[in-house]
């Protein structure tokens, strides 16, 4: 078997990106649905959407930073 090269931290970052990717998709999808159903509440939905994205994204970013540190 040939030698596998590369940093294991890269695999870790890839794994860390899966969950937040799905999560951001769910957050934005539902926010768009909310905005389409109630356009008058679009402003509130948008603010909350950015909050949700920010919280979800944090996990991927921690993975990204650990890739540098590891």
């Amino acid at each position, binding site marked *: 078997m040939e030698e596998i090269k590369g940093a294991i931290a890269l695999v870790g970052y890839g794994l860390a990106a899966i969950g937040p990717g799905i999560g951001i998709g769910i957050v934005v999808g539902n926010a768009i649905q909310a905005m389409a159903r109630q356009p008058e509440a679009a402003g509130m939905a948008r*603010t909350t959407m*950015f*909050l949700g*994205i*920010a*919280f979800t*994204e*944090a996990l991927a*970013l*921690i993975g*990204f*930073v650990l890739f*540098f*540190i590891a």
Partner: protein
Amino acid sequence: MESVILAASECDVSQEIICAPQDVLELFFFKDALFTIGGFHFTRTVFLIFLAMFIVLGLLYFGLRKGEKVPSKFSSAIEALVTFVKEDIAIGIIGPEGVKYAPYLLAVFMFVIVGNLFEVTPLINFPITSRMAIPLFISLVTWVIFVIVGFKKNGLRYLGDLIWPKSVPVALRWLVGIIEFVSTFLLRPITLAVRLFANLVAGHLMLTLLLASGWIFMSSVGDIGVRSIIGLPWFVFGLGIYVFEIVVAVLQAYIITLLSAVYVQTSVHPEH
């Protein structure tokens, strides 16, 4: 176009193409001081911090100067920005008493947006918020503010409600309490800082790698001939990312301000 490439000027083109920072610790410490005054090391980052400060002061001073009968377009834009932070973020998130926190939120917003936009400013091309010290300091100030406000508004009940939540079944209270305690006092400042930091590091890295590789391939047309055409898609992709990074810079400034407001809000009204 030369100025776009300045970010990549640290790469040694004649050798192998190595654009990664030679020492990752550069992200966490200020290195290579240009000169030192009384123990303070002046580096490129420190200069850019002062530049950002003067830009913010100048924007706010000349934008909000009194005495103009008819506000110019510039004044209206700055005023709209200040109103946005005050009305939408401070009052919209925290509530009527959010006016008190509007100056702090405005300072954070303006400083971070200017610092982020240095990333896509020609001739600078270096976001100061991609050095850990600056996001960490901002998030620690936010941490101090929301902890002090929490204790001031609610007394020791702030801590009590946090580690012994009444709305949870008794058997689970200790577990929820531990999670809440750790997430409020440890994870909040860390994620607030890391979010801004990592976004800007990632953007800076992507821009540098794409534009530098495109430029290096295209400029070595004499050595490798027609194969240098491979640099063109990289360069075009890099310019696309360049536009995307402007959006990221503004959005991250908005998000760090929004989250600071949300954290203060949870201390002002802990029930929600």
